[in-house]
């Protein structure tokens, strides 16, 4: 099915959460620490498209935490609200770490330079000068995005297999209506922000030719295999 290329938020089938269940979860949360989740401290908004199909584009709300100065891990939701669907995840690494990856791995990773410099990637609610301090770093990084839930084609549930996603690398790729929708909702102008970010530099060595799938499409396929189970056969057969 074709993507619809408007911001979608499909209704998930199922009964409303029972009051008892909701109360229970409040109680449960009160006992628990939520360690790794507490490291999530930043909301970034951008767009992804499918590794094999640029014409299917998805607004992606990233909730990111640093593991160190060169590595961020992000949960991706289709909306920044309470009922946001968790549709995927992204890993963001410094140029230095990216360059340590084997060549066969590099294809999964996309550059961030254009997303930042075009103004399209932004940090909602954070003043321009403050967000630009961080975006100066992001512009030099590479990201690996996997989506598990194809909300753009209206899937009410996460169906099928994971998809490798790519991101914007030049003008003319992003649908105007998707851009305008976000600009209106957040009262921002990508064009104006682009001017503000003109000074920002991308990776020191330039964008690696193997990144962005080397300009090809990437498509995931499912393969049935024998589970390896030497240990078990020895013990149980």
């Amino acid at each position, binding site marked *: 099915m074709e993507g619809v290329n408007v911001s979608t938020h499909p209704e998930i089938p199922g009964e409303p959460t029972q009051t008892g269940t909701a109360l229970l979860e409040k109680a449960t949360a009160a006992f628990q620490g939520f360690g790794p989740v507490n490291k999530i401290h930043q909301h970034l908004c951008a767009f992804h498209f499918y590794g*094999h199909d*640029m*014409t299917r584009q998805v607004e992606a709300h990233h909730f990111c935490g640093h593991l160190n100065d060169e*590595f961020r891990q992000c949960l991706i939701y289709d909306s920044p609200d309470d009922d946001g669907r968790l549709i995927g*995840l992204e890993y963001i690494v410094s140029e230095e770490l990216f360059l340590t990856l084997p060549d066969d*791995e590099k294809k999964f990773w996309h550059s961030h330079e254009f997303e930042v410099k075009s103004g399209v990637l932004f940090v909602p609610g954070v003043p321009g000068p403050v967000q630009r301090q961080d975006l100066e770093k992001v512009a030099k990084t590479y990201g690996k995005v996997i989506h598990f839930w194809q909300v753009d084609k209206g899937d009410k549930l996460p169906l099928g297999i994971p998809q490798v996603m790519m991101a914007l690398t*030049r003008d003319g790729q992003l649908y105007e209506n998707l851009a305008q929708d976000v600009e209106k909702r957040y009262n921002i102008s990508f064009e104006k922000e682009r001017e503000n970010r003109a000074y920002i530099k991308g990776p020191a060595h330039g964008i690696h030719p193997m990144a962005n799938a080397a300009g090809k499409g990437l498509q995931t396929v*499912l393969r049935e295999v024998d589970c*390896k189970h030497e240990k078990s056969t020895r013990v149980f057969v």
Partner: protein
Amino acid sequence: MAGTNGTGAQAGDEIPPGKRMNMEQHMLDKGAQMLQSLKPIKQMSQHACTFALYSHDTTRQIETHHYITRLNQDFLQCAVYDTDDCTGHLIGVEYIVSDRIFETLLPDEQKLWHSHAYEVKSGLWANPRVPEMVARPELENIAKTYGKFWCTWQTDRGDKLPMGPPALMMSPQGVGIGIVDPVLVQKRDEKYNISSDALKTARVEIAEPEWLNPQADYWKQHKDKGFCIDVETTEMKTRAPFP
């Protein structure tokens, strides 16, 4: 490379490698956190610790930490980490649906999902630091659900950075290649000062689902077959040049 059947990184491991954060970055993070509401993250209401097996190689087994958000009575979404402290690596995402929803899925979809009844009944599924009595009603819900778990960072084999395509994960079961390594369970139990055996006894009363769909836990009814994801290079459908 063989899995170490550990819980991922221990203190001192450099997974991932990289420079430490400086004060400026800490300030930027704090600032963003204060200005942004991070609503979907605040909806996470439950931490569960359990185990998972790689579908393509069930001898590789990992301890998992699920941070769970309920979107309605029949659907939960989980961010999965390899430890429960602030160094935890985000290793994947799991979706959980009620048996009612699961039965509406097509067989080709169902084969990617695993059942949760055994995990709950055997005491493998634990909610750390939550009294069993409090967790009980939710455990009764979970016992009747199915999950679909994609792992994107194989820290168990020592990957310092996320490598390769995502891997499908299966749940522990009481038979055959689904049996989880007791050493892994013991390690977890010691960390939280719990006993999976005692939990198992305490959960005897939890009703078994009347029927487990045989398309789930695919390997059980399909000669120990599993699934893996390959990535093929194709032409990209474009609307402007790429990259």
